[in-house]
């Protein structure tokens, strides 16, 4: 045996073929990132054939407006997922944050707290509520080291219960215009909420790609030990992500309120399933460390377009859920096949 490892010849280079192979794999990776785009295009073409009203400016804008608040929550969830954790409670934040703001401004006769604070303060309070809830989640998960899935599931239920309790299950109307302005104000005929969501995605995308903080998210989600060894303050990063996610979800909540025109006690309910579906279809890994903002956006748009097509096709309301769920399943399968990797 001893002669098998005699002092060796000079280190053979991996060679040109190796480098070209690597370059090809880089290309392939980039291509996979775009893999949902053809699917989206196919859907758009299909939609325009099925219904004349589909490929009109009004309809396309309505798809975008309808998707804006979902997009914000998907963005929030994607950040948490990339850092390797979960936050299910975001759907309840979507309800309770704007409701809290509304209760601050509404008179006691309108089911509010009767404090009748100025609108600006209320709007700020909405964001603060999002941040505080995110902090609370983060402390439980990061500092107390509770299981993120189950903690945020409990928070989902608690927050929903608080909202129902505070509003006695009633819908809140008659808020100041500021509550709806994100949906009603338009710029270039596109609602402010869509612009805001787009900006949020671009900023998040740039931060994730070109900023240290963003890259540390991938490092933490991809291999905690390696991240820690590289001097990243893992706990701090994860806590910050929960706070940011809470704020983003509360913004998503205001958009939702503007889109619907009122705050129901069930605002945001069951939204989290769609959020996860969009994120996973868009290539965000539930295991952490993987995924891009571009992918997340395509996931959101894909579901938005499908939803819109179902409505235009006048599918009976009772059946929409079953079909929508089936399409999500199908999309997951297609995404799995086209991206060629396990959705862990």
């Amino acid at each position, binding site marked *: *045996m*001893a002669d*098998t*490892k*005699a*002092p*060796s*010849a*000079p*280190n*053979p*280079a*991996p060679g040109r073929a*190796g*480098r070209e192979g*690597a*370059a090809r*794999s*880089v290309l392939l*990776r980039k291509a996979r990132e775009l893999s949902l785009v053809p699917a989206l295009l196919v859907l758009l073409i299909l939609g325009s054939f099925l219904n004349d009203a589909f490929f009109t400016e009004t309809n396309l804008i309505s798809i975008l407006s309808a998707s804006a608040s979902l997009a914000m929550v998907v963005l929030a969830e994607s950040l948490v997922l990339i850092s390797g954790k979960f936050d299910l409670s975001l759907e309840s934040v979507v309800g309770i944050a704007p409701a809290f703001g509304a209760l601050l401004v509404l008179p006691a006769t309108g089911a509010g707290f009767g404090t009748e604070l100025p609108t600006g303060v209320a709007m700020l309070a909405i964001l603060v509520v999002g941040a505080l809830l995110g902090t609370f989640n983060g402390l439980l998960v990061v500092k107390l080291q509770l299981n993120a899935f189950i903690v945020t599931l409990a928070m989902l239920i608690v927050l929903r219960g608080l909202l129902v309790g505070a509003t006695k299950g009633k819908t809140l109307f008659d808020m100041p215009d500021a509550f709806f302005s994100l949906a009603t104000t338009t710029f270039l005929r596109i609602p402010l909420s869509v612009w805001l969501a787009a900006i949020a995605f671009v900023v998040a995308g740039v931060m994730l*790609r*070109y*900023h*240290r*903080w963003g*890259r*540390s998210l*991938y*490092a933490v989600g*991809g*291999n905690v*030990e*390696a*991240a820690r*060894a*590289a*001097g*990243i303050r893992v706990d701090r990063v994860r806590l910050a992500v929960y706070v940011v996610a809470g704020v983003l979800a509360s913004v998503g909540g205001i958009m939702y309120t503007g889109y619907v025109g009122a705050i129901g006690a069930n605002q945001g309910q069951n939204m989290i399933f769609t959020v996860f579906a969009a994120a996973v279809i868009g290539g965000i890994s539930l295991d952490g*460390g*993987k995924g891009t903002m571009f992918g997340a956006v395509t996931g959101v748009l894909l579901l938005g377009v499908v939803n819109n097509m179902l409505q235009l096709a006048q599918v009976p309301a009772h059946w929409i859920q079953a079909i929508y769920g089936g399409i999500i399943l199908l999309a997951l399968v297609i995404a799995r096949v086209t991206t060629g990797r396990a959705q862990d």
Partner: protein
Amino acid sequence: MSTSDTTGQRPLVEAAGIVKRYGPTVALQDGRLTVLPGESHALVGRNGAGKSTLVRMLTGLEAPDAGTVLFDGEPAPPLGDRDAWRQKVACVYQHPTVVPELTVAENLFINRQPSSRHGFFSWRTLRGEAARLLDTWDIRVDPEARTADLKVEDRQMLEIARALSAGARFIILDEPTAQLDNREIERLFARMRAFQQSGVTFLFISHHLQEVYEVCQAVTVLRDARWITTAPVAELDRPALVEAMAGGLVTREESAARAGVPDDAPVLLKARDLTSDAYQDVDLTIHRGEVVGLAGSSGSGKIQLAESFTGLYRPTSGAATLQGSPLPFGDVTAALHAGVGWVPRDRHEQGLVKGLTVGDNATLSVLDRLGRRGFVGTERRRSVASDLIERLDIHAEGPDQPVSDLSGGNAQKVVMARALASDPRLLVLINPTAGVDVKSKESLLRRVDSAREDGTAVLVVSDELDDLRRCDRVLVLFHGRVVAEYPGGWSDHELIASIEGVAAGHTHSQGAEHDG
């Protein structure tokens, strides 16, 4: 003895009197290490000798309970100051400490991306810096490649490059050759020599002693948590090194007493040409009532070979028969039905379901025999479990006690009980006495004897010489090949030498003929 006295050079790393305890276990009683700048220093010792504990102290992951660590004559930085540690020392572990989804370039500069403004950085600069770094040290890895796609040798180079760029010139390689094939090992050694000429110092941990003689200039031996010796390799020949690792006492007692299996005993297990990533062309025959030991270092493929018979690991080619009928591969349930009982390599990971009771755990693999149509008779199970508890002398209150209450030894007996519950014809024991006390160990090994008397074929995979001493013969695996076979009566020295890959030549030819 300290090498620094003889050369007069100031040591780059000096650890003295290191003590580390984890609860009642003493991981390191007297750890010492003196590494001179520019040398490759080997750290050797059998499993449990305290090598990894010493490495944890040297890399600042933990503080020793007593003793000092000096770098270049100065005390080691405080534990919290990761940056200061990173500039002094880095360890390339067997498990990767890189982020698999990121590119090579990015892994090189995680959290310290070059020339960033307000945290924003330019990918072009990052890639350029990475390429320059890799070029400087002549490391041929594509900076754009996804790290998860790298081969082990390239990943090791990436980790070395990262350490060098952080400023460290002392690099610990923790069994770097365990996952490499021979050509890759040659390349690694060539790289190490080149690095050394550029002023890098290595601490090289390996189970393969001939590698120590090949790349290292000095060697430190640990045994039973203590420093034994440090010497230039030229002054410590192989027998002396093996002796330092194995200790003075040489036992031949029990192994010699074994009468052996009669030649006409029927063959129970017959495996031919088994090949996989972990081992090549292995033939193995076990007779009725025969106990065969399988020895080898951690990267030798012995565990994978044993797990091939239990269905956990699938060989790429080859076939095996148990009592004449083919043994299915890659299917645990089918292996169980075919008559294979086994103790998995790690009772915490694969052996026991922590939340269940002793009885549940002991009968987990035979539930289908305890009732009809999938229903399990409670009374039936209790009585089977009680029998097993008695048979194996498990110290438990009864079958209903949670298995998590038991001591290591008794927990391992539960795992053994499950292996025996199905009355297997082939019993595969992987590290059957790992981490158990002396009394339980005896009791577990007596089970091996009674299985032998019942006419079971037994395969024992272990690092413990005491386990192997019970065997009728011991096969040694080295880099995935059977390199030696010892009938009962071997000495510790020859077996250890063979496991570590030294002086295996002369037994090789004999072994190959016996085997198969």
